[in-house]
């Protein structure tokens, strides 16, 4: 059984590596992570996925408070390239969907390198940032 498990892990890893090159726009990889203060869980997908250098993309976000009500949440999405001291040359248009979901349109990472994608969640006048590292080759 142990051998079977090892085989399963290896084959799944290898298979996944092969599938990692899905054409942009076809993937719907969901990234789940916590905000920096641990108050919210963020589910994020990009379209297309993966993000390509210098190509526009949209972001879909779902925010779930770890405790307490989910009322009166607001979300903004932005990004920066810390090593270059700049962000995007455009501002994302954020609209609220159903429930605690938001869509940010019009993002564009115009340079290859390391970007930080920010999801700023505001509730009750307090903003907490959630962020995701994106490395573009």
């Amino acid at each position, binding site marked *: 059984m142990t051998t*079977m498990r090892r085989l399963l892990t290896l084959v*799944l890893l290898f298979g996944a590596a092969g*599938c990692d090159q899905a054409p942009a726009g076809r993937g719907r990889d969901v990234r789940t992570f916590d905000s920096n203060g641990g108050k919210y869980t963020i589910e994020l997908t990009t379209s297309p996925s993966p993000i390509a250098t*210098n190509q526009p993309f949209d972001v879909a976000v779902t925010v779930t408070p770890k405790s307490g009500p989910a009322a009166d949440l607001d979300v903004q999405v932005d990004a920066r390239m810390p090593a270059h*001291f700049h962000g*995007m040359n455009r501002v994302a248009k954020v609209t609220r969907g159903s429930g605690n979901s938001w869509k940010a349109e019009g993002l564009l990472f*115009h340079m*290859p390198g390391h970007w930080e994608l920010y999801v700023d969640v505001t509730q009750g006048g307090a903003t907490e940032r959630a962020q995701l590292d994106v490395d573009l*080759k």
Partner: protein
Amino acid sequence: MKAKILLSLLVLLGAAGALAWSRKGPASAGLVDAGEFSVLEVERILQHSPLGAPPPDPTNAVADQPAAATLGQLLFFDKRFSASGKVSCATCHDPLKGFGDGKALSASFPLDRNVPTLWNVAYGRWFFWDGRADSLWSQALKPLENPREHGFTRLQATQLLHADGSLRGAYVAAFGPIPDVGKFPAAGGPVEDAAHRAAWESMAEADRAVVDRIFSNAGKSIQAYERRLVSRSSRFDTFVEGLRTGDRAKMDALSPSARLGLKIFVGKGNCRLCHSGPAFSDGEFHNLGIPPTRGGPTPFRYTAIPEIRQDPFNGKGPFSDDREAGTKRVDFLVDLPETWGQVKTPGLRNVARTAPYMHQGQFKSLEDVVMFYSLLQGVLQAGHHERTILRPLLLDRKEVVGLVDFLESLTDEAIDERLLKPLD
């Protein structure tokens, strides 16, 4: 039995993964094995070729229609579209000089910017050095009414399009019947000249819209012609094709010196950060701190963004063929203090044909450009809200020559000569 089925499925999945992996293999073969390029460098090199078709411009419904390109080529070379009768688009964008004028700054026109090449202009996102036009068709209109360039007016342009049988025929073929503008003033537009402005303002709003429609169509036809000025068949492309397929003979299209230059371009030179993708430009804006040679420091991108928003010929305006797409272009723009002084990254294909270089032609040769990045000699200190990521590359002589050789390998050897002259 279940375990066997599961095992079979997993082996199949693994095989699929292996197949996908093996497809990536040839691209990194050859020169990687020889130790000339790393796997990462090969991956980066492949990002620069091939150059596909220009991206669509939904704000221009005739952008890729031959009839519109025919009209555009007629207009591009027609000197009658100027106050003096001596200036056409080709006067500054000379096809025999890489669609530039070969000068740092024009001797004939009091302009303080170098004439940008039109090669691969269709791959841009913004137009002019400061990107103050959000489409190639709206860009094409501005020099026509600039008193320091064509010095023409939109009423004169539409009258000429209507009156000249050859132009009218080409217009009708591209856009359908041209409205009768003979009843309107002979000259006029929202220009500096007081008499021309007064004539324009005397017209009813609906009549001005008729003129603006014809005028914008002229711009759209020039865009259709300029979208054909594509350079994508260079020695570098042959090299990349060889790299992709493992064809050694094709890889020999680049000399050892040019390969060294390429290695620096995608490696320690970090040239690819801004000169990215198959067009070798991110289409965006940066400030290199190169001192101006005429005039003082200029805001460039900083003031261009408000200009785009106010331009009646922008993508969200009434003359756009897809206002939704155009609205996205314009409304996503953001005012940022760091955009002060930023100019657009030029593409590098055919760059050996487009000297001198930079937005005021500060550098006479490609070697001068490479030496600038090597030493950053004379670079202006970053001002308030400005920070630079440029560091001197400190290249040795062999590396300088290699980079120049690589840039020269981007010259297209298969240009369609019919695009370089007026139509018969």
